[in-house]
């Protein structure tokens, strides 16, 4: 076999893949920027002066922060439970934690709506205590927690499975209590995996659309998140506004992904 024709074949293969990713993935990204800046930068920036857009941004940030806190706490607990102890039904528990990954976001939103809506006993109980959940921010939080539920748990579990439980058992044997073991042995080794899952949760929570759109009621200024506001602006034919918010969300989500792969590469190099 001679080298020259192979090199030509290599070049063709690279060119085909570059063209594929360029047209299929890069071009849509470029078009977001072009649509947002179609009427100039001042028109794009005016999007952020709108009080409805501002309240959507605030709501999205609040919902995302609560979701991260809740799912990080749960994820670490679940990973610890599933990797450090033996108990019957472990595979089933694991499968249920993974379930939100394959459930349609609309079905997730519907589940929260039917569970906490005004027609259900649970929802009526909360309503009697002056807590509105469906068509209000608490419902948005619950739906977002549902769709991002497995991320921290999965990432942390994968790492804890690799590291095993010998160090914990050794520390216990040397007289450490459970709290010392968790904070000084388990957590320091798991922190990058936890951070990885946290970033994934962050990116997904910021952009959640289907589940939130079912439960939110889409009341401008009250239950309108950034992804829902993008839909409202798009349907109002306000392309500059829709693509400015879309571009902002895209930049944040892609930045979170890049940080994640940078951490991955850095940890592998260590």
């Amino acid at each position: 076999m001679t080298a020259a024709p192979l090199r030509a074949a290599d070049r063709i293969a690279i060119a085909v893949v570059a063209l594929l990713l360029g047209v299929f993935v890069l071009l849509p990204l470029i078009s977001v920027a072009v649509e947002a800046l179609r009427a100039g930068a001042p028109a794009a920036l005016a999007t952020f002066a709108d009080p409805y857009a501002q309240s959507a941004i605030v709501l999205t940030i609040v919902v995302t922060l609560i979701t991260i806190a809740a799912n990080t706490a749960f994820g670490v607990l679940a990973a610890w439970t599933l990797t450090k102890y033996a108990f019957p039904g472990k595979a089933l528990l694991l499968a249920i934690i993974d379930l939100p990954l394959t459930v349609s976001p609309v079905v997730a939103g519907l589940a929260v709506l039917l569970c906490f809506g005004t027609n259900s006993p649970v929802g009526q109980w909360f309503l009697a205590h002056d807590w509105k959940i469906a068509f209000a921010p608490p419902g948005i939080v619950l739906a977002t927690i549902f769709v991002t539920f497995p991320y921290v748990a999965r990432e942390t579990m994968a790492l804890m499975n690799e590291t095993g439980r010998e160090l914990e058992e050794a520390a216990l044997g040397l007289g450490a209590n459970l709290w010392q073991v968790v904070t000084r042995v388990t957590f320091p080794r798991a922190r990058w995996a936890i951070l990885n899952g946290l970033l994934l949760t962050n990116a997904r929570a910021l952009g959640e659309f289907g589940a939130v759109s079912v439960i939110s009621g889409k009341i401008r200024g009250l239950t309108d998140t950034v992804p829902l506001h993008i839909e409202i602006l798009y349907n109002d034919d306000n392309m500059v506004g829709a693509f400015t918010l879309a571009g902002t969300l895209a930049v944040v989500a892609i930045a979170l992904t890049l940080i994640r792969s940078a951490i991955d590469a850095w940890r592998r190099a260590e």
Partner: protein
Amino acid sequence: MIPGRGIALGLTVTIVSLVVLVPLASIVLTLNGITPAGFLDVAFSPRALAAYRLSVGAAFAAAAIDVVAGGAIAAVLVRYPSRGMRILDALVDVPFALPTAVTGITLATLYGPNGWIGSWFAHHGLPIAYTPAGIVLALAFVGLPFVVRTVQPIIATLPAEFGEAAASLGAAPLAVLARVTLPLLAPAFLTGFALALARTIGEYGSVIFIAGNMPLRTEIVPLVIVTRLEEYDYAGAAAVAVVSLVFSFVMLLAINTLQRRLSAARGLA
């Protein structure tokens, strides 16, 4: 023995029940409002049946496209590592990172009748947006990273000696690919296919803007549920959602089985 099993297990099971199981169970409980015959009428109405066919068919078509495109992308990324390749590698994660509503309005505009790509196709009598082709395209976009990221590490660990041995025994390059390389990669491709399918089968945000949403023609399953909800037909929405949940359970089972097999195959390589 590490202490604390009772508390840790109790807390985990309680939280999982409250966050996942109770809400999903309330979908099933809502079916109390209708008779079994009523359930069948709604869950398998012509409109719902057309939506199942479209959602499942489009997701299968998209995952098949992703296997071909994603396989080629993964192979090139592994075989020619260089600085420039890192940009292509980062591009693969973009569909995964992008919020679905962003993907939705962007693809609908780009492939729409006035878009950069869509206008050319529409001019040649092949409209993409508001047709099933648009739905497949959006789903292929969303599913692509799942195939690439599943196949890529397996290609990287593929022992080159197998191919070299076959070639030295006189096998032509295509025969090596068909008889040695692809069979070794089959479990990875199958897993990537299933992951893409699981992600796209219930997809909503990236599809509804480009789909057209015409009942019986371009209406996906999640949209049928949303339409029922907008008519305050909670039992009807729940009926269609239960069928969708069955798909989710099957996908989850399939993926768990495939991933177990894949890690076993990886252990062999």
